């Protein structure tokens, strides 16, 4: 009988570290919510030193063959043939109606070899679109270990354990190399909005890879971090999460649950200059319509501290704010009436701000627009003053900067 949750290739190392015994499920795998009793130190490691995060549960597909670029170009919204070997793209892919199915990173490992990551299974969708093409699609989710090394000292730590030219590795580029004799691919990518790398290796090498990274980071404050810390960082980076911030067109139960890339603030990933890709015509029509009635946008909003403080003061309390990121749908109002909804948010420990990612009609999406966001104050629903702000909420120069 299939055991669920399964354990990731790093489990022999992560299990003893997880003193909190707080595990959560991610794509059928057990991953640490936080290793320590509280996740605070793990979060601050991401922003202050470096954190090691097991991201192996990601779905990973290896697409190879003469028509590999052709297939992927047909599926994703960004231009694939123009990608250089060693380049990584963040992209979405859509159904024929231009509604987002999933999002992930696409790495060109060689001329005819790509790795696509995704939040949900996509083997069937890729296969359906591969009809007649000379291409092989392999689900390598189980056989590929993935670990994210994220934080200001991530580069320094990597340099302790690899000869690969990490210093020259640009944002969203990938190199092959070796870490203590283990073949790895290192991409300058991540889900924290910080300087960081993701390291890809055969699952069988996961444990020595983990040990090598831990050893390299020992003097630099490298801290294993769980999903709670990652969730805070990704909200600050305004990186959306499927099933939380949007629902896949393949999983939506009703039309209104689906979103186009434009409605998710991902219009920049839609390359309409490409002649053909799934959803092209619908997305071209949507772009032509522009901000017509009914267009939704995905924005960052910030609740105003004074307003929060006032609401709590009215009941005789100081503001009480969650220490974890939240993932519930929260009404967003304009003039006291609900106009939209926030899908994730947090009290940013770094920015000292209450921030959220929200879906609002286009007319409310302009930065500076004054809105309200629901807060529960001592069992009562209230509205805190908020406004639309540019995202990412936190965007340090080191994220893209060179060494």
């Amino acid at each position, binding site marked *: 009988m299939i055991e669920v949750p399964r354990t990731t290739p790093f489990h022999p190392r992560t299990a003893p570290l997880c003193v909190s015994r707080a595990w959560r499920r991610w794509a*059928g795998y057990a991953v640490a919510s936080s290793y320590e009793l509280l996740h605070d130190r793990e979060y601050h490691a991401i922003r202050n030193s470096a954190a090691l995060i097991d991201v192996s549960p990601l779905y990973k597909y290896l697409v190879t063959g003469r028509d590999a670029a052709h297939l992927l170009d047909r599926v994703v919204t960004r231009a694939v043939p123009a990608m250089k070997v060693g380049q990584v793209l963040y992209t979405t892919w859509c159904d024929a109606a231009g509604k987002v199915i999933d999002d992930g990173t696409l790495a060109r490992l060689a001329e005819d070899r790509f790795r696509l990551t995704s939040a949900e299974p996509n*083997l069937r969708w890729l*296969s359906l679109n591969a009809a007649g093409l000379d291409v092989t699609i392999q*689900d390598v989710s189980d056989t590929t270990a993935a670990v994210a090394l994220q934080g200001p000292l991530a580069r320094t730590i990597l340099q302790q354990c690899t000869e690969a030219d990490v210093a020259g590795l640009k944002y969203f580029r990938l190199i092959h190399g070796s870490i203590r004799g283990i073949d790895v691919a290192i991409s300058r990518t991540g889900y924290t909005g910080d300087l960081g790398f993701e390291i890809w290796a055969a699952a069988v090498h996961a444990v020595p890879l983990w040990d090598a990274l831990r050893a390299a980071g020992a003097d630099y404050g490298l801290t294993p971090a769980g999903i709670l810390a990652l969730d805070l960082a990704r909200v600050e980076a305004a990186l959306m999460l499927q099933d939380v911030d949007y629902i896949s067109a393949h999983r939506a*139960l009703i039309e209104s649950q689906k979103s186009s890339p434009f409605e998710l603030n991902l219009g920049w990933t839609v390359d309409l200059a490409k002649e053909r890709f799934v959803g092209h015509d619908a997305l071209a029509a949507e772009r032509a319509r522009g901000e017509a009635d009914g267009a939704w946008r995905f924005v960052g909003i910030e609740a105003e501290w004074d307003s929060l403080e006032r609401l709590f003061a009215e009941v005789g309390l100081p503001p009480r704010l969650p220490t974890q990121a939240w993932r519930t749908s929260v009404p967003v109002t304009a003039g006291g009436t609900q106009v939209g909804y926030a899908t994730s948010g947090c009290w940013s420990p770094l920015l000292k701000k209450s921030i959220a990612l929200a879906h609002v009609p286009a007319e409310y999406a302009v930065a500076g627009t004054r809105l309200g966001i629901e807060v529960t104050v001592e069992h009562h629903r209230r509205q805190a003053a908020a406004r639309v702000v540019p995202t990412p909420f936190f965007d340090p120069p080191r994220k893209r900067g060179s060494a």
Partner: protein
Amino acid sequence: MAGRYDAIVIGGGHNGLVNAAYLARAGRRVLVLERRPRVGGAAVTEEIFPGFKFSMFSYVVSLLRPEIIRDLDLPAHGLHILPLESSVTPMPNGDYLGAWADHDQTRLEIARHSPRDAEAYDEYGRLMHHMAHAVKPILGMLPPDPASLSPRDLAGLLKLGRHFRSLGAERFHALFKLMTMSSADFLDEWFETDVLKATKSASGIIGTFLGPRSPGTAYVLLHHYMGELDGVFRAWGFAKGGTGAVSEAIAAAARGFGAEIRTDAAVTHVLTAGGRVTGVALESGEEIAAGTVVSSLDPRRTFLELVDAADLPAAFADDIRRFTFRGSSAKVNLALGALPSFTCMPGEGPHLRGAISISPSMAYVERAYDDAKYGAFSRRPYMDIVFPSMIDPGMAPPGKHVMSIFVQYAPYHLTGGWNDQQREALGDAVITALEEFAPNIRSCIEGRQVLTPADIERITGLSEGNIFQGELALHQLFFLRPAPGWARFRTPVGRYYQCGSGTHPGGGIMGASGRLAALAVLADGA
């Protein structure tokens, strides 16, 4: 109105009881007349061997309408539906296909057989969920007659049309396919794993005399997808105390509303005068008067046995004569001294708390049908097995178990007819077929009851032993169930109503027919 009763309900099966409960709840004086010594019809729990209790016929609950559970407050009368969480199909090579309550577990299990099917399974599930959602309102709707020009039928059709249009093109097409295709062809469009298709297809053939390659069986897949408990789709369950406990709970609710229930009271005739019912006559000779009579029996008994042919329009009687039953399933109930060990999952385990499906391949299921087509029972039948005592320990003595085996195909019209010898031959075939997957099964058995379609007919009264009071085939559903023009629970005889599974929407321990018929009776001002 003369007499003690406003309405008499013939038959104390779950639909008759639901009907009576709703009528009584509306303040009517109701009498239920049941031929057997106990209520329940095919939803009865009986202690066949000392200490071993069986849901003798119907054994799972999937379709009991939530509004009935709420309206009749059935939990207060003892109803407790326990989850039947998993399904395992053993394969001849010692492997198996499992479906578990946990989504990840099921996904990974199917991926073991085919990664593509694992993803398709999710999409298929969502599509069927949508389809079930789309068709579900129709279950609670009085079926409009498309050939009628009455304003009510036209309005009903318009509502139905709008409903279908709101599905969107993709889903409308899927619904059309479900209505026209065979379950085998429909599943071929989705999956490549044979054992997965075979197991899914099995739910398209239950209660029909059709094989998975027969057109129209795809719809039955959907019909069984509409199982809904507490608003949760696809939640199959097992009633604590067996399915008889469902009947007892409904009976208790009906009594609570003031209904009277008499057992050992077989109705032989519905009395009429001037084209209207006046009461019923019992086998004992007793006559009981009532202004309204509701029959929960199947259409053949309701119209061709209980009323005079002279009271029915000839064309209608002809339609009823053509309504097909063709019982195709049998039931084997085993009292076990020990649990059988399946080769694919030896020993005790969670699989014994769920269903075991003997449907190892599409060819296996279709071949089972081939036997039946030519008048034999399947040498190696499709079987749906549950161990109720694994879920409800009260069903068997401590340490012992009961095993319920639904068997298809066992045709009512067996060549040479059913007799004791054929019955035991069927029982032996079932055990032999099971031995392939659970080699020690024979040594576990302490008692065996085999119920052929002929037995089902004899005991419950279901014509030809059809468990759904008539085949669940498209030509006998919606406005055609049981006959064109008479799908709204009324009949050509004044104040005579029908409320059994042989009426829309029919089939399963659903209770919808009983409830909708009660609403029709009340709407007519009884």
